[in-house]
């Protein structure tokens, strides 16, 4: 361990380290970064909670007793409960296929996985309107069979799945590619079948990456506005998710209720951040020991 000792020595002899900038540069950069963070992240976050509690605690909690608010929260939870597990399965399957096998069309598949990130959420919603709307390709057929997708829960779920599809896959592909196939090959030569290999070897190897992908996917599924706004139809008590409900309340100048519901989403973001940090710390702990 000569490294730290040497750098301490050079500090003492006032020799400058190649990567050390002058103090004023360090301080300026740090201050700018912190000011930026404060202005664009902490102030809005604080504003959400200040506005929500502006008239005290009672009106804050009253906002959650409103039937429309309860219905919006329920719809958001339902949507996430369907979209996140599905995207977990799709994401693992896609990452598995891309990282472990070579097949024609692989690069096309990688591009397609990124598509929801590249396309504006509003466009994503409009695609569903084009497909399932009354004037859309499948609209008349759906109407004949009395199936409601657009302006109903199925449309909201579909739009959410589309928008949040990349999170799990994008998290897992580089991880699985870096890990290679040797662990799986070793398991197979030891007599494990495909199912045992997946559950006992592959899944434990990717669990932190997968967890990380899932919480990001969940955060986006609950917070998605654009695509859902297009397909929802904004029917109160039926097709309003939390973000849509907030918008309606805000437009009706019902600021306390709007910010109260918004504070719930903000809390979700904070929990997500905390979990993300915890996973990264945990991941570094297990992988740091390996290096």
């Amino acid at each position: 361990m000569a490294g730290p000792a040497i750098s301490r020595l050079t500090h003492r002899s006032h020799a400058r380290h190649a990567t050390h900038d002058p103090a004023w540069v360090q301080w300026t950069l740090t201050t700018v970064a912190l000011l930026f963070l404060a202005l664009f992240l902490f102030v809005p976050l604080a504003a959400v909670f200040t506005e929500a509690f502006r008239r005290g605690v009672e009106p804050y909690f009253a906002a959650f007793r409103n039937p429309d608010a309860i219905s919006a929260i329920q719809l958001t939870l339902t949507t996430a409960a369907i979209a996140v597990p599905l995207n977990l399965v799709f994401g693992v399957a896609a990452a598995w296929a891309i990282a472990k096998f070579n097949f024609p069309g692989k690069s096309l598949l990688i591009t397609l996985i990124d598509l929801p990130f590249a396309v504006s959420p509003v466009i994503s919603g409009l695609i569903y309107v084009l497909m399932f709307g009354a004037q859309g390709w499948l609209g008349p057929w759906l109407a004949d069979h009395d199936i409601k997708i657009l302006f109903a829960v199925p449309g909201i779920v579909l739009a959410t799945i589309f928008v949040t599809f990349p999170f799990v896959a994008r998290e897992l592909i580089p991880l699985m590619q870096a890990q290679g196939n040797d662990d799986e090959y070793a398991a197979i030569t030891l007599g494990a079948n495909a199912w045992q290999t997946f559950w006992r070897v592959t899944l434990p190897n990717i669990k932190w990456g997968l967890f990380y992908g899932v919480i990001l996917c969940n955060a986006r599924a609950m917070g998605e506005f654009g695509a859902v706004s297009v397909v929802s139809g904004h029917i109160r008590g039926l097709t309003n998710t939390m973000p849509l409900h907030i918008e309606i309340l805000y437009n009706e100048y019902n600021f306390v209720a709007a910010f109260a519901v918004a504070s719930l989403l903000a809390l979700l973001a904070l929990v997500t951040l905390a979990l993300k940090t915890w996973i990264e710390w945990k991941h570094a702990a297990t992988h740091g020991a390996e290096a």
Partner: protein
Amino acid sequence: MSVEVRNITKRFGSFVALDNVSLRINSGELVALLGPSGSGKTTLLRIIAGLEFPDPGSAQVLFYDDDVTHLPASQRKAGFAFQHYALFRHMTVFENVAFGLRVRPRDKRPAETEIRNRVEKLLRLVQLEPLGRRFPSQLSGGQRQRVALARALAVEPKVLLLDEPFGALDAQVRKELRRWLRRLHDEIHVTTLFVTHDQEEALEVADRVAIMREGRIEQIGTPEEIYEHPASPFILNFLGNVNLFQGRIHEGRVVIGGAEFQATNHVGAPNSGAVAYVRPHDIRLTREQTGQSSLAARILRVNAAGPVVQVELERLDDRSQFGVQLSREFSRQLNPQAGEQVFVELQNLRVFADDYSI
């Protein structure tokens, strides 16, 4: 009782990785597959393990006379050790070794106490008994590879396949570990095939060595046979330093420059161009010319650091350079100096026709 492959061909696109290879490993034998990278040795190993399948045709893989050509890897019972160990990082050493026993179908799975006994016995065998509760990340490279071997042995494999098992280790540990592997093999006698690109490792450890080149087995034999009777210039070159002398074959003797030498073996037509290959320790240096069988040369450099003294020389007639190894004792007597002129006698010439490609 043996592990055998017959007529294995494998193409990746237009690249021929294996070209009609057949190989037999006798029961209890330790065979090395030696060759440069891209010669197909790892592909052959993976085909035997069932991780890769040969091109359809007359290819066959036989384990103790059972045809396993179409059997998946999980049912072949071939133990495999990887260059980078491939230990399961979330399991302890103990659980890694126990893995092959735990994934067995319920009716064939040993009881927990039986698993415990067998894993502990294996850990003793690889001298890692106290480390069962550690995780792979807490072990050194050499220890990890020993865990990987114990894990492969746990399923009582019919054949043990090692893919560059010591390739990721530093030179000192490599040497220790390959001697350890030899002793382990003498103890348990499991039929073993191991891949390496290190000729020293292959010659030291294996009962027999198969040298591969461009998807074919170029020669197979005991380390001594291969070293003493290399079948081609490629093998001569691959096994270590060798000097080339251009010459002609004339009445069973080789004519190089103005001198004539007895050839140990030769391939090719008489009175044709030939290349003589001479190992550095098969060249004698003298100060006086001894009749018809010596060449004049000038010493370029003398390096006495090491177990033998390395001398670099340049022929006076065609200025081609070559290297000689002298024992330290002989070097003290002769006391060669850079710049002086000496005569060299070649011994043990292995002569191949000039058109023989390397």
